[in-house]
């Protein structure tokens, strides 16, 4: 019987996002040339919220975009039904920009590997940072996040469910033990 443990509620997520927004500005020494790119699906909403938070902090408009990495997945050669492809929309030219990749949960690192490949097909950012709400460990590639909302250690049979208001009607993160 799987057990569900709440990791973050709405207020905890709001506090974490505030801190993460500050950290992004601190690491980048401001918001000049900053672009936030959310990974489909729930990274998109988190990127939009971080862009708004940084925008009000810095009195600036921070562009945000969405990236679907499906066509860059490393398991597409496997036979089976094709994963659904989502929308990619980046706000203008990435050359010379500081791009912050935003995702909900960081696990094996394969999604981020695909995102890096896809972003470099779009341009040559000056710098790319990785920002995730939850780092659950379990990496299969040498990838690490620069900004993390919460770190939790999990096993391969566990699942981390991150929900966002815009898509799911509530903000919450739960650990489901397998």
């Amino acid at each position, binding site marked *: 019987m799987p057990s569900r443990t709440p990791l973050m509620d709405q207020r905890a997520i709001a506090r974490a996002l505030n801190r993460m927004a500050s950290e992004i500005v601190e690491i980048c020494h401001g918001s000049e040339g900053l672009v936030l790119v959310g990974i489909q699906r729930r990274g998109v909403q988190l990127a939009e919220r971080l862009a708004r938070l940084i925008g009000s902090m810095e009195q600036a408009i921070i562009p945000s975009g969405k990236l*679907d990495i*499906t*066509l*860059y997945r490393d398991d*597409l*050669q496997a*036979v*089976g*039904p*094709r*994963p*659904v*492809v*989502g*929308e*990619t*929309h980046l706000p203008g030219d990435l050359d010379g920009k500081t791009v912050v990749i935003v995702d909900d949960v960081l696990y094996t690192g394969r999604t981020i590997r695909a995102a890096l*490949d*896809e972003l470099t*097909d*779009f*341009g040559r950012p000056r710098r790319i940072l990785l920002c995730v709400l939850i780092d659950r460990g379990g990496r299969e590639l040498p990838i690490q996040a620069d900004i993390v909302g919460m770190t939790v250690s999990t096993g391969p049979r566990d699942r981390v469910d991150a929900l966002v208001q815009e898509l799911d009607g509530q903000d919450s993160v739960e650990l489901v033990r397998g």
Partner: protein
Amino acid sequence: MSAPSLGKDLVGLEHLSAGQLRLILDTAEPFKEVSERAIKKVPALRGKTIVNLFFEASTRTRISFEFAEKRLSADTVNVAVSGSSVSKGETLVDTARNLEAMRIDMVVIRHHASGSAEFLGNRIRSNVINAGDGKHEHPTQGLLDMLTLRDRFGRLEGLNVAICGDVLHSRVARSNIWGLTRLGAEVGVCGPASLLPRNIQDLGVTILPRIEDAIQWADALNVLRLQLERMTAGFIPSLREYNRVFGVTRDRLAKAPKDLTILHPGPMNRGVEIDSDVADGEHSVILPQVTNGVAVRMAVLYLLAGGAPDWHAGASE
């Protein structure tokens, strides 16, 4: 998240479910954007080898497939029949089996015989995509017409689409009829009685005897090419006569109760089935059709590359 499967081959739209048709159209949406990128290439079909096997002349369809394949990073080979072993008498299956022995993954085939794509698909392991088989089907053309109509109207359900002209010789007409009716559009056909197949109404279409009837009834006209090269017998008195009675002209469209969207699968016979000022007019979506063709073909290639072993798996909704 996984999509429902499309099966091994795409031979036509007749046997696809509404769910499978929507899957292809929805998958084509994100592929439109790939062709707008500075680097128009994604690695989804890296390492796949695709043969474009064209037994009939084609410019638009072959180039469109080739762009779709290349933008998905597949390796492609074009086989044109003149100058190949086919002109030395090799059979279709032998040609395909020899290609397969070189370890290919997919075949895009255009052939003058109706049913050839299905015939081939049943005999080789590679995915087979029909790029037009005789007078039977041209499924990717049907799909790109549907995508273009959906872009324009936001829906297909309840739309009145009149297919005008040489329905008898047209595989585009058949794919349109099956695909559009399956997704809830009303289809009418309009043309000289000699160019309408017998019992066409059995496919669930309305017969519109005069072009004026089609213009009154329709939201969109899909104007077919008069297939001059297939006209071995005297189906029409003359091209001028055809244009006078069935040509889609600006004067005729001016009497329509609303602005009609104009589609044409190309290549056009300007001044025969369609007048230039209509083809180039503000309600023409003939060039968006071509753009959508690449996206639809990318979607089909991407979905088939999953290669589900069950032919029509996922047909249930």
